């Protein structure tokens, strides 16, 4: 029986992007459903009654929620191709730790960088870039966080590239050269190029968000 895979998502969502990349890496065919977050579909509310958020992966009618959980699910179900989590359990623990770190330390700071101004924005930028530098330390000289192969930590982090491209281009080049090289390597992958929306579109969307917050 063919698998039925549906992804409820919102195109600029960094969490949604993680899932899109994971599905692409595994070559899974799926139906993409765009959600209007101001007018959530009955399907979304039914499939994620607890959080009412995207992304939601619906596999043969059963929902999986929370991007980090969805990506691990994808890795465990479609296990014959492109392993996303490391095979060594200590490395797996490290990957989980750092994805949790990204969610705790980078997401809010990134959002505030886009949606605030003045001192608040400067503080958010500082927090974001400090977290980034901590992560760069984890990369070391490896091509990817997963080692030779692109993996769970790489795909969890790459969607944040819009934030550092927009707000810290010169600082990145000056202070995080390994990071910049890693971003370039990731963007060369077909799976990522397909899953990530166009930079201009993201910037337009973010400007729209700022206008709605009456900042401009």
């Amino acid at each position, binding site marked *: 029986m063919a698998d039925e895979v549906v992804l409820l998502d919102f195109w600029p969502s960094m969490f949604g992007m993680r899932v899109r990349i994971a599905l692409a890496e595994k070559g899974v065919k799926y139906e993409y459903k765009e959600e209007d977050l101001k007018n959530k579909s009955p399907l979304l509310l039914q499939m994620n009654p607890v959080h009412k958020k995207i992304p939601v992966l619906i596999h043969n009618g059963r929902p999986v929620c929370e991007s980090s959980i969805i990506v*691990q699910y994808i890795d*465990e179900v479609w296990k014959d191709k492109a392993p996303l989590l490391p095979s060594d359990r200590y490395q797996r623990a490290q990957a989980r730790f750092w994805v949790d770190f990204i969610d705790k330390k980078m997401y809010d700071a990134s959002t505030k960088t886009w949606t605030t101004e003045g001192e608040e924005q400067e503080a958010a930028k500082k927090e974001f870039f400090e977290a980034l530098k901590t992560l760069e330390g984890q990369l070391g000289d490896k091509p990817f966080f997963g080692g030779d192969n692109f993996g769970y930590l790489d795909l969890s982090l790459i969607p944040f590239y819009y934030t550092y491209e927009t707000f810290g281009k010169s600082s990145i080049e000056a202070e995080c050269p390994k990071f910049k090289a890693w971003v370039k390597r990731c963007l060369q992958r077909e799976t990522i190029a397909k899953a990530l929306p166009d930079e201009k579109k993201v910037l337009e969307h973010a400007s729209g968000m700022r206008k709605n917050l009456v900042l401009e």
Partner: protein
Amino acid sequence: MAEVKLLKTWSSHFALRVVWALKLKGVQFDSIEEDLSNKSPLLLQHNPVYKKIPVLVHNGRAISESLVILEYIDETWKQYPLLPDDPYERARARFWAKFSDDKVFPSIWGVFIKQGKEQEEAFAQVFENFSFLEEELKGKKFFGGEKIGYADLALGWIAERVFELEEIGVKVIEKEKFPLVSAWMQEFLKVPVIKESLPPHEKLVTKMRGIREKYLGAAHPK
């Protein structure tokens, strides 16, 4: 021979999860009590990112964040599996564990540090969270099914703390409103490994009362 150390404090419910997991699997370990006002060089070395407990040190390598530690323990010691084999059931267990930390804890903290009208309003969130847990427990004794598992260990702090909270005047759950969650709490605390690892009740009540008074005092300075 494998060497397992756990850096913890006596009152941390995050550390308690790890104790429960290790004991359920019959893993021998050394407990190292940390004084968080004077963190040891060992803690700072093994968790430089957050400088927090719990930290599991296995054969010299450190793992931090209680839920990450739980998964590592489950993958390393195969007896008494905490997570099911089926990927969908695993995803569900992980979902409820995350729900515990992302939603339930902040909501209970919210009522713990407030009083009066503010506290009343904060209770709405607690009740909403409990109603989700109530729904999930339909047809099940534990979140893990017939036996306790990963999600039970993650949510177990609720069962453990609810009595201390009541003693200091914060009643978070009514049996009539949430019969399944209430029954789960009782059954969870009956599990021998859980029962024998609980922190000293009076000491915890005193500590929690002190924390609550501090927050209430700060909110309404005299």
